[in-house]
């Protein structure tokens, strides 16, 4: 048990350090963007949150395929953990996106390619959580969620492509707009590193919690059998 405890400690330290570095870079190092002014600094947290939302779905996709092949419950616990985190980060992305849209475009919501794709991604997460909530029986619940996750994951690139084709008539680089000066790029990379480390830490913690939920259920069944 202590091996995973150590890794968690190391991760915690690394995450804290990188977050402090990120905050320093955002508020002191990087120059203010000319057109949008200071509010543009939301960008340095906004993009990593989107990155985590997408990364989570990759994790769900991989663990779903592994579950359908191996049918072992551990892969399913990984998928549940990643789904929860991914859904929360996608929601955070939409909220901060609209907070950013207000000063930038004077309206709480615009159908910009990035925000629209994020909204569809949000609904794909809802689809995953819905099938998981409404299916009975562990094995069937895991199998059905894996199916929805795989189809949902394949849908994401096509969603992004068709939305960008629809909104801007040319498929532009959606997440990483061009024109980032070197300091801006450095800050962004550090922020993404910080969020990724945080993500791995939360994911490990959440997986362990899901495993112990299963353990509690087994112990409860064992108790019933002894009494029964």
């Amino acid at each position, binding site marked *: 048990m202590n091996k995973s405890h150590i890794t968690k400690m190391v991760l915690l330290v690394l995450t804290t350090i990188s977050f402090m570095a990120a905050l320093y870079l955002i508020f002191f190092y990087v120059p203010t963007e000319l057109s949008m002014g200071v509010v543009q600094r939301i960008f340095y947290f906004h993009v990593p949150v989107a990155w985590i939302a997408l990364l989570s779905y990759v994790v769900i996709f991989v663990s779903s395929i592994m579950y359908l092949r191996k049918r072992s419950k551990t892969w399913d616990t990984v998928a549940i953990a990643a789904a929860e985190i991914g859904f929360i980060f996608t929601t955070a992305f939409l909220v901060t996106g609209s907070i950013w849209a207000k000063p930038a475009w004077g309206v709480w919501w615009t159908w910009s390619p990035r925000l629209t794709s994020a909204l569809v991604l949000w609904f794909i997460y809802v689809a995953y959580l819905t099938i998981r909530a409404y299916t009975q*029986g*562990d*094995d069937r619940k895991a199998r059905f969620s894996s199916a929805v996750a795989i189809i949902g994951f394949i849908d994401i690139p096509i969603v992004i492509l068709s939305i960008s084709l629809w909104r801007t008539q040319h498929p532009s680089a959606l997440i990483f707009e061009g024109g980032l000066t070197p300091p801006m790029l450095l800050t962004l990379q550090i922020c993404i590193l910080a969020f990724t480390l945080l993500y791995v830490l939360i994911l490990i913690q959440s997986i362990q919690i899901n495993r112990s939920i299963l353990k509690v*259920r*087994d112990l409860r*069944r064992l108790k019933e059998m002894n009494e029964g």
Partner: protein
Amino acid sequence: MVTKAPALSDGPIISVKGLTRTFNDFLALRGIDIDIGAGEKVAVLGPNGAGKTTLLKVLSSAITSSSGEVTIRSTRLKDKDPEVRRYIGVVSHQTFLYQELTAYENFTFYCRMYDVSDREERIREIIDRIGMMPRLHDRVSNLSRGMQQRLSIGRALLHRPEILLLDEPDTGLDWHALSSLWDIINREDGINRTILFTTHNLSRACTLSNRVVIMNKGKIVHDIAGSGLDAGNIEEIYSRLTGGIE
């Protein structure tokens, strides 16, 4: 106390080694080992939850096994080869019939799914034998439970399976109807059919089969064939091993 029944032909037509099956952490089958020779008529007894239906579902390849080896006609079910199902007929609690279609249409559909070449004659032959000729073109939803059970048994015989798995075939049928159907199931066009059926009725188990297997809590607790087969003896063993008859 498990006495091995002699296998009738060369290898067993069904061989099960160390079969386990779990449903959401409930161990439905806890290590089943049994060999069934071609032509054997095996009755499977046991209280509810003993795993009878699960065993039948695994053998019919409706569900996969959690561990262990199941070989039917020397093909391993694990290889997921659909062809092995050609030799298996299944009668389950559910009738497997489409409510909105007529008996004739249901049988035509299943004949096409099982590639039955002489479809028309086969359907007429089976319908006539199960005594459903007058109701051939009635919708299944308009038929009584007993008639649907007859159709369900007829459906399982359409493709002349060598192995027949019946899950409590006596539900919805009175004794007379079941025994008349039993002759059909047995003597059907010259196939010495291997039959595995589950039932709660001990006397029927003895009269209809030449081997009785008793299951309890996911394991085979008794397997006796031939001479030992009389209702009294079985009843005594059954109540001793499974704690009483429901």
